[in-house]
């Protein structure tokens, strides 16, 4: 009941617009930046199913795919919907980094209305099971011995995979190559085929390869150990004092919508994160609950882009904004 009381308090404090509150009257458009089947699309469709099951929103919610240009087409679409109360969008880390590196990606999260952060995705640092490295320290020491010879497979240069590498390289002075592959499957195939030495992988992706004895985990990119990996040290525990870069997912709204609407959506998603189905969803996908309200998300955004700008600059990526 506590959040409801808080909401009532907020409502009474905020004057007329607030007092009337906001209740959607038309179907809600849920914008995602991937095509059907992409990570964001699957999250959005699962969330919509859960919200409908728990009857958190009185109207239907419809996922709309605005793919193209990484996240830029979806972000611009939301920006064009300024003031539209029946549209929300799901953002991920790429919404935060694209504006830093492409001049065409003009809309930042700050230009939209932050609503809530929902999910933090931790990651693991994995090697092939027959690799000589038993700890992250072993790997880094080997990389130091033969600078540039060891290889890591990963996504694009702005992906979390590369950011983790940059941070580790900077703190240790070691150097190894980063090879970009567009698809997650290709990254894993490169590691299992012995063509690269290490990769940063999501726990749900790695789990079965570890169980089958093909892959070994050296460390986890998380602030505290994940339930599924109680014996694997975090980066800090492994002796590397670098931030555990999170992969984030959350909700934004178009610019210029009333505070009452923000409060409404904040409340819907806060209630969603309390449900059993949400907890099971997080567990199944090995995500971490990353709930933050609008104010927290805005602060997170400022800090995150500040850090990323520095890291990417050091990685030799051209920063445009």
């Amino acid at each position, binding site marked *: 009941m506590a959040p409801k009381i808080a909401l009532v308090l907020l409502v009474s404090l905020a004057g007329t617009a607030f007092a009337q509150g906001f209740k959607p009257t038309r179907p809600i458009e849920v914008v995602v930046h991937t095509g059907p089947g992409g990570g964001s699309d699957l999250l959005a469709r699962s969330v919509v*199913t859960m919200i409908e099951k728990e009857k958190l929103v009185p109207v239907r919610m419809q996922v709309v795919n605005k793919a193209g240009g990484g996240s830029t087409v979806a972000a611009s679409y939301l920006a064009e919907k300024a003031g539209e109360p029946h549209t929300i969008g799901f953002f991920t880390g790429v919404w935060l980094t694209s504006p830093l590196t*492409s001049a*065409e990606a003009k809309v930042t999260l700050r230009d939209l209305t932050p609503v809530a952060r929902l999910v933090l995705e931790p990651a693991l640092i994995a090697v092939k099971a027959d690799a000589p490295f038993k700890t992250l320290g072993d790997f880094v020491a080997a990389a130091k011995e033969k600078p540039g010879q060891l*290889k890591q497979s990963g996504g694009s240069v702005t992906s979390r995979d590369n950011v983790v590498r940059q941070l580790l390289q900077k703190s240790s002075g070691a150097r190894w190559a980063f*090879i970009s592959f567009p*698809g997650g*499957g290709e990254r894993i*195939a490169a590691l*299992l085929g012995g063509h690269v030495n290490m990769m940063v992988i999501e726990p749900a992706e790695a789990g079965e*390869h570890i169980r089958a004895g093909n892959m070994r985990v050296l460390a986890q990119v998380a602030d505290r150990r994940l339930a599924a990996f109680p014996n694997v040290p975090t980066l800090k525990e492994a002796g590397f004092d670098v931030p555990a870069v999170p992969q984030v997912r959350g909700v934004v709204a178009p610019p210029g919508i009333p505070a009452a609407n923000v409060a409404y959506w904040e409340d819907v998603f806060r209630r969603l994160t309390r449900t059993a189905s949400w907890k099971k969803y997080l567990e199944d996908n090995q995500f971490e609950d990353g709930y933050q309200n609008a104010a927290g998300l805005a602060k997170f955004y400022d800090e995150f882009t500040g850090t990323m700008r520095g890291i990417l600059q050091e990685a030799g990526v051209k920063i445009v904004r």
Partner: protein
Amino acid sequence: MEIFSGLIHGFALALQPANLLWCFVGVFLGTVVGIMPGLGPPATIAMLLPLTFLMNPASAMIMLAGIYYGAKYGGSTTSILLNVPGESASIVTCLDGYQMAKKGRAGAALGIAAIASFVAGTVGVLGLMFVAPPLARFALAFSSPEYFALMSLGLAMVVLLAGHSIVKALLAMLVGLWISSIGTDLFSSTSRFTFGRMELLSGIDFIVVAIGVFALGEVLANLEAVEEPQALPVPKGLRNLLPTLQDLKDCRFAFANGSIVGFLVGVLPGGGSTIASFISYGIEKAVSKRPEQFGKGVVEGVAAPEGANNSETGGALVPLLTLGIPGSGTTAILLAALVLWGFKPGPLFISENPSLFWSLVASMYIGNIMLLVLNLPLVPLFAQVLRTPAYVLYPVILGVSMVGVYSISGSVFDVGLLAGFGLLGYVMRKLDFPSAPLILGLVLGGALERALRQSLMMSEGSLSILVARPISAVMLSLALLILLMPLFSKVNAWRRKLL
């Protein structure tokens, strides 16, 4: 023995009425999705995913797989009838399929596409059943240098797709390669040739280019006719609408070629059915006794690529089910679906879920038969489309093309691009530039560039990595051989002249 007991168990499950029904729903939806240009299996499966929670996982998997391979059957329909590729995998089918339709052999083309799909689809399932684990290891031996060699081999096919002039074919291919470089570079995150348009940041979908150049180009070229163009000929009588015994004879090699090439390319996580269909078409032409007829409507030019794109499905399921590694957009969604249903796809998946695996395999045999039975009677029906007078048919092609392109990502910008590429296709026709090399360059360009840059990163800048590895060395030599083929035939012709 284990395989047979597994298969019998699988058939026992797949033949249950409910599973038969879901298998039919899947292949039927797949056929429909395949026929409609634009909307592809990944989008369909993603949209149906919430519904599958109400089903038992085996039925759901049977249905979703049915959509996947069913779409490969349907994809050839609009390629042959309208020169509009229904799926990216059916682009190659346009080359000879549409020419056959123009000659009044649309029925034979549609029929042979269905038969080739059935043969190769079944071979793909056999492969999945018998050789999946060793092939999965073969797939892992493939890395960037090998992919570079594979893409080079594909690009070398350009000499086989060339019309009168190799130079024009190479120029068209270069344009295709250039288009493939548009967008954000994966390795540096810089924008290339985007002209400040955010719509171009993720590049141009090659299906937009293919529909523009093939379908719109054709419509524009036909608009020139001063006289009312005649409706395409459609022979009367059911017998004349189906492939003849001679057709089947001509396709014997194409069936085998398509089945094997498609399956092998499908097993590779970086392969894909479009590449498979191009390569099998090239091989077919290279070994054919009548290569000069290709592109003018030969039946094996339809059978080889259509077979390849169907057995690719069985191949693509190999890394998914034996390693938990998805190689394409559709298998990535199937992987997500398995996770959502509470399975753990990975190296232990088959041994821990034998029932699911074997009922899927059995259902694919059944599904392929259903598709043949479903598609063959449709052939005479679809062939009637061509009786439509030109003043109706061309606007319909325009409409189907635009709706198809718009449905890929809901972007009006893409429809504009489509118009642009339609003009390009028209100009290329007028100047006698072949359009297939352009599509070939576009399809292979991105993967070729990535594989080369990845290889050079692995070797710290040394090109020797490309020839030092056996698989890649063999494929590069083959590519060179194919590139030199026109030269040989020139020398031969010259010698004959002298003698």
